[in-house]
């Protein structure tokens, strides 16, 4: 691990003051310490923010507000949290990692692409311009949607998929002030600049997650398909929420994970569900467009079919009786 300076902040202004161009904020450490050990991340300074008062899980008039330093396990168990969020969290990582990892950090976790994590190989995301061995190499777990010639890495967060489905936002604070950014707009497609993963500016900190108030979104679920039944990243996942009125789907939210370079919202699938009865036939018809625009790689063409089936399974598990 490269040497770094360490400082522990007690207040938000102190944390922002301690931040420098090559510094990193440390919360749970499950991404940062891991990638520092691998020399993938080499900050000059690490600012411990664990004592900042960025806590609390509250239902408010604006919606559900989750402090950025709340831990995954605590959020997953909280009664105010939507099932799709709780289930996405409960199926992430391992119990110890969920006890450690913060909500803000979860949204900023880095891809699990083996080439990104190995500093001895090229990687455009880690080292712009060096190349992407994944395009023709070991790419079974990589993305089929939102990829570019420069990068095909999958976004790893289950939580982000659930939050994007529910139109959640992140509150970002820096010396320049505060802004609320929709999570779907926060993440960037890799394009020619895969090293720019999100809209976070230097020295900026996520202070909370806000999920808009929408009572029907409690009728929601998260289905994750993976190589092992636990402690594994998604090959494909689906976050779905349905507003059922008079036996038909009035409104729907659908997003997918494990298949995209960013959490993948599926507005066409949502539109195709509106006004339809909750039957397997409707679900299969709506999910048919889920992989439109997919660019499969040498080893992951199976994800095109798996994605559609995962969405159908999620919808069936919500409205399976119909």
């Amino acid at each position, binding site marked *: 691990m490269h040497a770094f300076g360490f400082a522990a902040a007690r207040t938000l202004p102190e944390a922002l003051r301690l931040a420098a161009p090559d510094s990193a904020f440390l919360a749970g450490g499950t991404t940062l310490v891991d990638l520092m050990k691998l020399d993938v991340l080499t900050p000059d300074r690490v600012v411990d923010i664990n004592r900042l008062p960025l806590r609390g899980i509250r239902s408010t008039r604006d919606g559900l507000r989750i402090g950025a330093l709340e831990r995954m396990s605590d959020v997953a168990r909280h009664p105010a949290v939507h099932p799709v969020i709780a289930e996405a969290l409960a199926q992430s990582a391992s119990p*110890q990692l969920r006890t450690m990892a913060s909500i803000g950090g979860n949204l900023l976790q880095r891809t699990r692409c083996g080439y990104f994590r190995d500093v001895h190989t090229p990687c455009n995301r880690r080292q712009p311009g060096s190349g992407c061995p994944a395009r023709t190499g070991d790419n079974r777990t990589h993305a089929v949607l939102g990829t570019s010639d420069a990068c095909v890495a999958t976004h790893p967060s289950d939580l982000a998929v659930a939050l994007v489905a529910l139109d959640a936002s992140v509150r970002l604070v820096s010396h320049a002030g505060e802004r609320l950014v929709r999570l779907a707009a926060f993440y960037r497609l890799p394009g020619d600049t895969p090293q720019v993963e999100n809209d976070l500016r230097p020295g900026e900190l996520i202070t909370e997650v806000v999920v808009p108030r929408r009572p029907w979104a409690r009728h929601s679920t998260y289905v994750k398909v993976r190589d092992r039944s636990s402690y594994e990243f998604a090959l494909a996942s689906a976050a779905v929420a349905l507003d059922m009125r008079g036996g038909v789907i009035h409104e729907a939210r659908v997003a997918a994970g494990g298949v995209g370079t960013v959490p993948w919202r599926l507005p066409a699938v949502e539109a195709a569900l509106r006004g339809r009865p909750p039957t397997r036939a409707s679900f299969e018809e709506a999910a048919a467009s889920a992989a439109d625009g997919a660019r499969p790689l040498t080893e992951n063409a199976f994800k095109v079919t798996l994605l559609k089936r995962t969405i159908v399974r999620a919808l069936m598990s919500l409205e399976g009786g119909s």
Partner: protein
Amino acid sequence: MGGETPRGGGLSRRRFFGTTAAASAGVVLTTAPAPAARAADDDGAVDVAITVNGTAEKLHVDPRVTLLDALRERLGLTGTKKGCDRGQCGACTVHVDGRRVLSCLTLAATADGRKVTTIEGLADGDDLHPVQRAFVECDGFQCGFCTSGQIMSAAALLKEGHAWTDEEIREAMSGNICRCGAYPGIVEAIKTARRAD
């Protein structure tokens, strides 16, 4: 136990190698009372005050040092095992403020002011913790390398108050890998310990 001063007079073989490794890992001793970890000193090291198994300890550590290395190399508590050192195997599981965490992904500097419990602190003297007793009774291990992590994880699981079926217990223990495949015994041990509680 040595309270706030470095422990032990004699150097055991393990202790000797432990301190040698500690020096190379950048951990040094301090005898002066230290303030809470706020910022690094001129030498880049950080003062950390932690309570380990009920004993107050003061460390002066390079901020790169993990809690795992501080426990093993600086405090001589080698019951906590280093398996993958990447947060994937669970062998290094300890409790920090009563919650199970991976000590290999925890920087020692961030443990300032926290209470740490390791496998050495789980028993009450010679009276084993119910989970320890159940692991012995139910053959919850073979080679034993993952066992301290399994037991720390299981003890936390019982306090968390969830995971009642075999399937739920397996899920709740999924962060602890056992290469010998002692999983059936581990599940049995957790159920036995819960009944004993």
